[in-house]
């Protein structure tokens, strides 16, 4: 299998990737309005308050939407199809995209649990449906 490209981390995103490497999901929560956010950024995108408090939700959530790649759009993806990417509304707040397994099980409203997949130099957050997978 072709190794996926490692993420181009930056100053803002560093703690997120470091957390995944330890199989922990770290999100920022606004100290004023208490909304959680992803991706990481220096202010709250809901109320503008500076900073964020680190929270560690369980990574469970609900599928808001999904797509299934059935024909590879790039040569790198040729040996991975079919695969599914879901938009997941995390329990406690925050929305994130991740691979959903197994791809055939995808449906909106489905409860999912986190799966941490270690690659050579980064860790990926995936999600598993009730039928398992991962």
């Amino acid at each position, binding site marked *: 299998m072709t190794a996926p490209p490692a993420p181009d981390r930056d100053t803002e995103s560093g703690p997120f990737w470091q957390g995944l490497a330890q199989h922990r999901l770290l999100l920022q929560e606004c100290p004023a309005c208490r909304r959680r956010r992803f991706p990481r950024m220096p202010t709250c995108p809901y109320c503008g308050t500076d900073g964020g408090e680190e929270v560690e939700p369980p990574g469970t959530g609900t599928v808001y*939407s999904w*797509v299934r790649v059935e*024909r590879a*759009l*790039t040569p790198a993806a040729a040996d991975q199809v079919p695969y599914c990417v879901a938009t997941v509304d995390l329990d406690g707040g925050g929305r994130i995209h991740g691979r959903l397994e197994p791809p055939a099980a995808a449906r909106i409203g489905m409860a999912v649990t986190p799966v941490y997949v270690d690659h050579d130099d980064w860790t990926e957050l995936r999600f598993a449906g009730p039928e398992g997978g991962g």
Partner: protein
Amino acid sequence: MRAAVAGVGYTAFSRDSGRSVLSLATEACRRAVDDAGLDVAAVDGIASFRVMDDSVPAQAVATTLALPGLRFSVDADMGGQAPCYLVWLAAMAVETGRARNVLVYRALNGRSGARVGTMRFGGMGAQFRYPIGYDAYMMYVAMWAQRFVYETGQGEEDLAAVAVAQRAYAVDNDRAVRRRPLTLQDYLAAPHVVHPFRADDCTVEVDGACAVLVTSLEQARDLRHPPAVVASGAYRAGPRPGLDIGDHALWDDYTRNYTSHLRDDLFGAAGLTPGDVQVAQIYDCFTSTVLIGLEGLGLCERGGSGAFVRSGATTLAGRLPTNTHGGLLSEGYLHGMNTVGEAVLQVQGRGGSRQAARHEVAAVTSGALMDGSALILTADR
């Protein structure tokens, strides 16, 4: 002073132009000026846009057109959100006397050169998408489409209806790249590429250029064709449009795009309502954006866009002829500049065999997701 679009210019659309982007841009701009019947030396403004540096800047076209000078120049780092926005900016420059005659163009070798379909959209959010294989614009629009059809109670036959209706227009359009007739059965027989999209849900990338000439209404009345008056324009991004063009993790509602947000500004400034629109040109990099756009602008009811298209309402015989060039789906992906061009031709009554019978008020949109723009063009009345 009011502004109007007076001319439209196109190059041929092809899969391999064999030409420079600068040559394509120059040809389309010159054709737009000639179409209007204006002396090119009177052009004093140019606006264009590009995605990931895939085009040439306005100053280069000012040079190749041998213009005496520019009073207005914009190179927007935007995709398909830009065409209506730039025409609106040009109209405001003309209305306020800052410029007299402004060209707005899009030029690219979008097929033989860098292709948006597989282009990497860099930016701060890219690190969260590319490593997980969420790596094509098609996937982002598909993610919205999946939620949209689910939440509004629609389905694959509604997406299909858009592709089928628009292809019927393209059959009669010499400029269109896809002209083979398409039936619902053909559509459904094809496999998914990225569920819920099949190949016929997707635009066709091309090499080419399109330009329009914006001038004062007063001057447009003395030129070759009837003016297409810029009655209003609007740009809107909703809250939390994200870190870059492909980042929608913070967008709340994938069933409503910028069209829902700009509708009141757009119609309010024109003193019109959605019910007044006689021709619509809705941005369609994918079929779903037509449905979301028709609903967002209030041209049909929420959840009713698929039934609206399936009823024949968007055909020439229907209540609201829509995407009469075949759209980006069939004519080709000039990132919505050709969508504006078609609206101008319709308002001017120059649609030929694709001309809508009622064409005094046209709505045009630019963009698919978090932000975008729109215009109301009207006949001179």
